[in-house]
């Protein structure tokens, strides 16, 4: 039977072709060009769904194919793709969100003169992300990993005239590149330590999963931590999270696509793909769990004090990715992938909803919004569903996946569980604050707001449906998702305790938010009046940016300037001395060129003697 999987490489090729066509057409492509990108993403989606259908029917075997990229006598570097349940799941998620964002952008971006450039970038991004997901070895993944990063850079800096967008784009690229260095060194290590220089995920699985001892513990831990550094950069984990909130300078559909649903998930996906290396090292696992848990609560607290609707959602993304890392750190691949799966839908929904709001009121400051619920019923309703899913309220998707994470955390270490629950409470609180300030009450700013066109609301409705139902693939009563994805992996069952505690935390957060921001029975400055320092600390995001500026940016800039002076005066100065002595010899020569033959003869003789002495002296070298 000819397998559809042989054609899986076409999934990233469709949008890549769209990018090529749109780039060749230039700005002349206009809005017609936008449809080229959308059609390509639809083609990717259809093929991904067909692949998923074949895998779900259970008839398909895992398929992988590769070709030699660089051949040399002693080794071959190859690129290739691999179709497994995990890759197919990611293909569907990425191509679905990508298609919906494409559709939505027809409305959101319709007045932008560079609309075809926008769709070209989106197509290149989709292509890179789909390629990343399909990769069969680390080299292929690294290539697409970097391409995804550059697309993110291009899209964050899309409004290139804004100085903030320029700064944010630069920051996004450079900060994630710190992580990329880790990943690159990890690849170098694997190349030299793995048998046959293999970088295949299958080989990695074999070597680290079954033949423990082939690679020493120290090296294993080192490789795992370096890979994790890459993931920390891409997935916005502490301490490399600083780029992600700034990346909100990009157009809002991009925030939904890249900085919520897909690209940032690449780090989690990378760790999942190389999970055997992590499982082989307890130190690496603990690091992942601690960083994940810390990021979850750290970002959630910052989210409480932000006023920009997109930044609140950005910190919530950082926090939710922390949950996924926590799940991985405590050994639950299923929990991580499940939360990634549901989060992709409800976070894309929230960002697109925020885009719809911004489109209507032309501001991102939630203090200038209010009362939009009556004017934008679809946006408000779907946003509410997304917020409930994020807050972990049953039966919405986020509840099931967050419970899976928390159950695994409780089993590993109660502290992780407690941190996770507190972060969940904060999550519910900041989402309640956001929702009530934007949609409830009376308008505080623009009053002419109206609902967005259908091309924008339809994607919202589709995502809202998914945010409701996506969680049912893996419940404590039916663990189909985990068994399909990772056959044989043991998973913790969410106990009644976990379910009750997490529901209570979510409801408490919402109730408190309602009391403060909707009912008004608790004064808003209840905290800020008593602890202004704490609020300021949160508003300034714990001063991490300022710290980096002080510790890295300024010293390196100073070093550069110092070296510049040294290069000018010391290194080049030495040359000037040589140069001056050369011209002094030149002047001497001019004096010698008096026209007298005897002088010439003498000079030639002296030269000859020096030469002869040099040759004679050679014996003693």
């Amino acid at each position, binding site marked *: 039977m000819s397998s559809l999987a042989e054609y899986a490489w076409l999934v990233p090729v469709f949008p890549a072709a769209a990018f090529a066509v749109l780039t060749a057409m230039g700005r002349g492509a206009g809005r017609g060009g936008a449809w080229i990108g959308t059609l390509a993403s639809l083609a990717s989606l259809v093929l991904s769904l067909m692949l998923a259908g074949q895998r779900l029917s259970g008839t398909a075997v895992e398929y992988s194919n590769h070709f030699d990229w660089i051949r*040399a*006598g*002693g080794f071959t570097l190859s690129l290739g793709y691999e179709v497994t349940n995990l890759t197919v799941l990611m293909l569907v998620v990425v191509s679905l969100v990508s298609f919906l964002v494409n559709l939505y952008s027809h409305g959101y971006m319709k007045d932008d003169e560079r609309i075809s450039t926008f769709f070209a970038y989106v197509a290149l991004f989709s292509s890179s992300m789909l390629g990343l997901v399909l990769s069969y070895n680390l080299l292929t993944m690294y290539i697409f990993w970097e391409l995804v990063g550059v697309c993110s850079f291009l899209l964050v800096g899309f409004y*290139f005239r804004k100085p903030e967008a320029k700064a944010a784009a630069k920051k996004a690229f450079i900060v994630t590149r710190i992580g990329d260095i880790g990943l*690159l*060194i990890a690849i*170098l290590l694997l190349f030299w330590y793995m048998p046959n220089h293999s970088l295949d995920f299958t080989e990695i699985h074999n070597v680290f999963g079954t033949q423990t001892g082939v690679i020493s513990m120290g090296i294993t831990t080192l490789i795992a931590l370096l890979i994790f550094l890459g993931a920390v950069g891409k997935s916005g984990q502490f301490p490399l999270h600083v780029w992600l909130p700034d990346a909100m300078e990009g157009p809002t559909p991009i925030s939904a696509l890249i900085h919520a649903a897909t690209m940032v998930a690449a780090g989690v996906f990378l760790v999942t793909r190389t999970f055997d290396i992590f499982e082989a090292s307890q130190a690496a696992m603990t690091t992942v769990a601690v960083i994940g848990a810390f990021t979850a609560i750290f970002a959630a607290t910052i989210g409480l004090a932000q006023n920009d609707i997109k930044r609140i959602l950005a910190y919530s993304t950082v926090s939710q990715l922390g949950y996924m890392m926590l799940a991985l750190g405590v050994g639950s691949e299923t929990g991580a992938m499940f939360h990634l799966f549901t989060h992709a839908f409800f976070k894309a929904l929230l960002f697109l909803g925020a885009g719809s709001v911004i489109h209507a009121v032309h501001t991102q400051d939630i203090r200038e919004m209010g009362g939009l619920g009556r004017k934008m019923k679809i946006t408000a309703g779907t946003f509410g569903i997304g917020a409930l899913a994020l807050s972990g309220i049953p039966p919405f998707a986020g509840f099931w996946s967050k419970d899976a994470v928390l159950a695994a955390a409780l089993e590993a270490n109660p502290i992780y569980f407690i941190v996770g629950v507190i972060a969940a409470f904060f999550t519910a609180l900041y989402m309640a604050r956001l929702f009530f300030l934007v949609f409830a009450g009376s308008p505080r700013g623009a009053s002419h707001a109206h609902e967005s066109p259908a091309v924008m609301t339809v994607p919202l409705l589709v995502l809202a449906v998914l945010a409701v139902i996506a969680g049912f693939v893996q419940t404590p009563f039916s663990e189909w998702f985990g068994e399909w994805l990772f056959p044989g992996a043991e998973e913790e069952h969410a106990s009644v305790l976990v379910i009750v505690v997490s529901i209570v935390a979510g409801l408490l957060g919402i109730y408190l938010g309602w009391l403060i921001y909707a009912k008004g029975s608790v004064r808003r400055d209840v905290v800020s009046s008593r602890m202004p320092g704490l609020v300021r600390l949160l508003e300034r995001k714990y001063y991490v940016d300022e710290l980096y500026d002080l510790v890295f940016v300024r010293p390196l800039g100073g*070093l*550069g300037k110092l070296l510049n002076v040294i*290069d000018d005066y010391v290194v080049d100065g030495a040359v000037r001395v040589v140069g001056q002595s050369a011209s002094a010899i030149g002047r001497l020569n001019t004096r010698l060129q008096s026209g007298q033959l005897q002088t010439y003869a003498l000079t030639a003789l002296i030269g000859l003697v020096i030469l002869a002495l040099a040759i004679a002296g050679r014996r003693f070298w």
Partner: protein
Amino acid sequence: MIEDIPVLSLILLSPLVGLLIVLLLPGQRSNWLRTAAVVFTLIPLALSLWLFASFQPGAGGAAYAEHYTWLSIPLNKEMVNGGSMNLNFDYSLSVDGISLPLLLLTAIVSTMAALASVHIRKRWKLFYVLFLLLETGMYGVFLARDLIEFFIFFELTLIPMFFLIGIWGYYGREKAATRFLVYNGLGSAAMLLAFLILIATAGFTAVQQDTGFQIDFSGSYDVLLKNLADPASYANNASAEMADLGLYLSDSLKWTAFVLLLVAFGVKIPIFPFHTWMLRVHTEAPPSIVMIHSGVLLKMGVYGLIRFGAFLLPAQLESWSTAIAILGVINILYGAVLACVQKEFKLVLAYSSISHMGIVLLGIASLNEAGLEGALYQSVSHGLISALLFLIVGSLYERTNTTQLDELGGLAKSVPFLSGILLTAGLASLGLPGLSGFVGEFLSFLGLFGSMKWITAIGVFGILFAAVYVLRSVLNITYGPLKEPFAGIKDARFIEAVPMVALTALIVLLGVYPSVLTDVMQHGFGGLLEQISQRTGG
């Protein structure tokens, strides 16, 4: 059929024919002169492409080699047993997997630079005469298989460069030209001394005849390669004669020759602290000449170090490999950190070149297949990328009259095409996968990591700084609010766009499909790697 045509000589001589034709054209017709120059850079380009396309790694080097003895001078030396001694000067051309990519690079960059010379505003005839002379010199360097011949061609590139910088450069052109000559002159002196040592001690063939040994000295690379690879046989062959003459290549003499070669080619690459001359050339020479300078001339240093340092003296290279790797890391980080703080875009690019050439040194120091291929790949890639960058600099300067970063800004609004190409070139320079820069970097790091993990790991940090200086400078030029004076400037003309698109396409091709080059290179390094593995194995 290509075997029957002296392609190598045709490549070498066609710019000289062009030179004669340019001389015959009227000096005021800049279009005629430029057209003639472009045509005569296209001919060697077409020939090199043909050579590249029909190159068969398995077939051996003989198909693409030409060898004539030019003149033979008898040396009046009393010989034991009445033998005789000659000194031969050879005209010997050849290509292999190492020189062919660089030959093609030279042809491509020369053509693009000839097209880009549209910005030259005075003394066109002399300009193109020198340009074509320079081109011949570069072909000669990559084709020559005789040390004396190599030296002559190497020097032949210096003189036209000196005038091209000194006459058509910017404000500080004369100082830059002098600096260029002083430095490269010192390098050449070191090279000549090293070559003389090698020729005098190992550059001979001895043939037993009735009257005794007939000994032919020459700069022949093949003879040197054979003799140095197998010192026992060449010493035994004529041991009596040689001992009598005191001609014996001791280890310390080999060491001296290697250090001299390292200095000679280190100035050219350039290796810290011999780099300051090239900063001046980058900022003061006209952009089309910098395309050649940065694109090709620096690679002559790399080529020399590989061809003579690695192949003739692999043991010395091996003992120096840690030092070369450390020098490489210094180049990478020093260049990158300094590139981050420059205010002049051309200086950013100059320091970035230093940084990128550091990666080449890492590849050479690795002494394995991945690293050596990486070094060569990086050279070709950097040649294309820096040629493209200076092509853009030329077009930008014509419009803005400045390349100071703080005077530029927001150009993506008024010149979207130029800005797009600049961003692509920048991304290639910072090593984005899918563009050529990544392959060379990755292979070099991969190669060196096998033997020197810590040094490589430190060097890898260069890619972080590369991101900083590339984005800082490129975004300063193209992003942000459009500066007032540049609101009305026009985007690239067709004649400017053609070489930009061509170079971009090549950078993408090499980034996506590296085998097109590595399959050829692989053949070139075979013999060297065998030598090295024999020594380490035995």
